């Protein structure tokens, strides 16, 4: 018998059902055989080239990774980057929601922020990194850059969610005099949450990409970005691949854990 799971991430807040296995069938999930196929292609290409400096084999990457994780420097680099990039992400969530709420309440605030958000969205991340290096110590750069990349996404989506709140529910709230915190808790929360959740999903990958890019350019000592840069200048391809694998792994794991916690929190609040 097929099991089904439900999720509330449609923007209109209505439920949709995802049957297990359908994601892979639709081409959006991973199949083990496909992953094995590409690993074999990678291994054979690396063997055919015969030069690890050009293309390291997956086996070498795994062996290098095995060595790295037994060093203190590895865990220091991971925690250094994790704290800063996730810190920037969380700050952007808080600021994005606050700014969206203020923009909804005060049109002058929305007009004031509009050009700023447009500039942040349009400016290449590398330009920001180089510019910010002038003002911010390299150790704090990834916090600011991940904050800057995530902020407009959260702000725009939450504001859109507030604007799309069901007018009929707002009329109902007006008649029953549901105001202040109660209106936020019962009406806006469930109406805006699908937009917020969707924005978080998009931002999670972006904050890691931009944060690591900031570290590669800023080179703060003991960060993942610094390790990547060192691998590049010494042409240490196994290290480069191993660190890239670590970034992907940490980014995906954090994304999964964060979205799971978010869903649990949403359900707990809605069911309370």
């Amino acid at each position, binding site marked *: 018998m097929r099991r089904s799971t439900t999720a*509330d991430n449609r923007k209109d807040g209505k439920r949709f059902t995802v049957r297990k296995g359908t994601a892979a069938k639709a081409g959006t999930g991973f199949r083990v055989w496909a992953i094995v196929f590409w690993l074999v292609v990678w291994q054979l290409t690396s063997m055919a080239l015969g030069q690890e400096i050009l293309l390291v084999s997956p086996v070498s990457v795994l062996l290098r990774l095995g060595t790295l994780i037994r060093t203190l420097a590895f865990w220091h680099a991971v925690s250094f980057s994790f704290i800063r990039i996730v810190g920037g992400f969380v700050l952007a969530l808080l600021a994005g929601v606050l700014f969206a709420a203020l923009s909804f309440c005060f049109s002058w605030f929305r007009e004031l922020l509009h050009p700023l958000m447009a500039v942040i969205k349009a400016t290449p991340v590398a330009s920001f990194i180089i510019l910010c290096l002038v003002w911010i110590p390299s150790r704090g750069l990834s916090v600011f850059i991940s904050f800057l990349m995530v902020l407009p996404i959260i702000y725009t989506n939450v504001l859109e969610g507030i604007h799309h709140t069901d007018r009929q529910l707002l009329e*109902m709230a007006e008649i029953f005099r549901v105001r202040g915190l109660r209106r936020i808790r*019962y*009406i806006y929360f*469930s109406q805006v949450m699908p937009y917020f959740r969707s924005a978080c999903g998009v931002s999670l990958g972006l904050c890691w990409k931009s944060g690591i890019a900031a570290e590669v350019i800023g080179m703060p000592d003991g960060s993942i970005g610094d390790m990547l840069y060192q691998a590049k200048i010494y042409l240490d391809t196994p290290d480069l691949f191993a660190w890239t694998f670590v970034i992907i792994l940490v980014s995906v794991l954090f994304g999964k854990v964060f979205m799971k916690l978010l869903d649990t929190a949403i359900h707990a609040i809605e069911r309370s």
Partner: protein
Amino acid sequence: MDITLKNVTKSYGDLTVLRQFNHTFREGETTCIMGPSGCGKTTLLRLLMGLEKPDEGEILGLSGLRMGAVFQEYRLCENLNAISNVRMVCSHALPKERITQALTQVGITDSLYKPVRDYSGGMKRRVAIVRAVLSDPEICFLDEPFEGLDEATRSVVGSWLYRQLSGKTVLMVSHDEEDALRMDASVFRLDQDI
């Protein structure tokens, strides 16, 4: 205090729904507004609820009144369960047991903690009715409150609603004369009285 409409006119573009309308609804009475589709019943209710402003004329006797309503479209928060939907509009002092008891009395017994999006139309209607009653309104607006309920449920919910709103000012819109009888309401025919 009675609710009085004086020379109220309401138009939507070129369509005038109410023209120089005058009427007084008595305090503490239940009135069932009846009439053919499109005659302005819902517009009249929306004007009284303050959701629309009259183009001309005035409505007296409503200011400061605590209102409750059952809308045609339920207007429930779909992600929330029945208890949360009711609790949203109630006083903080109202115990949860009172909400559970009321929902049980209208026949919602085993799905109290499910999101209402999983409910049938009839169940949503009953949650909306309980919500209106437990908000403890001084005036209650009911727009087709029994729509979508089968005859047996109409009877149970109708007599429960009648008991709960007894002595309060109730303005109800319905197509069904049975609903008026069920609520012991005086009938006001909008098409004839304009």
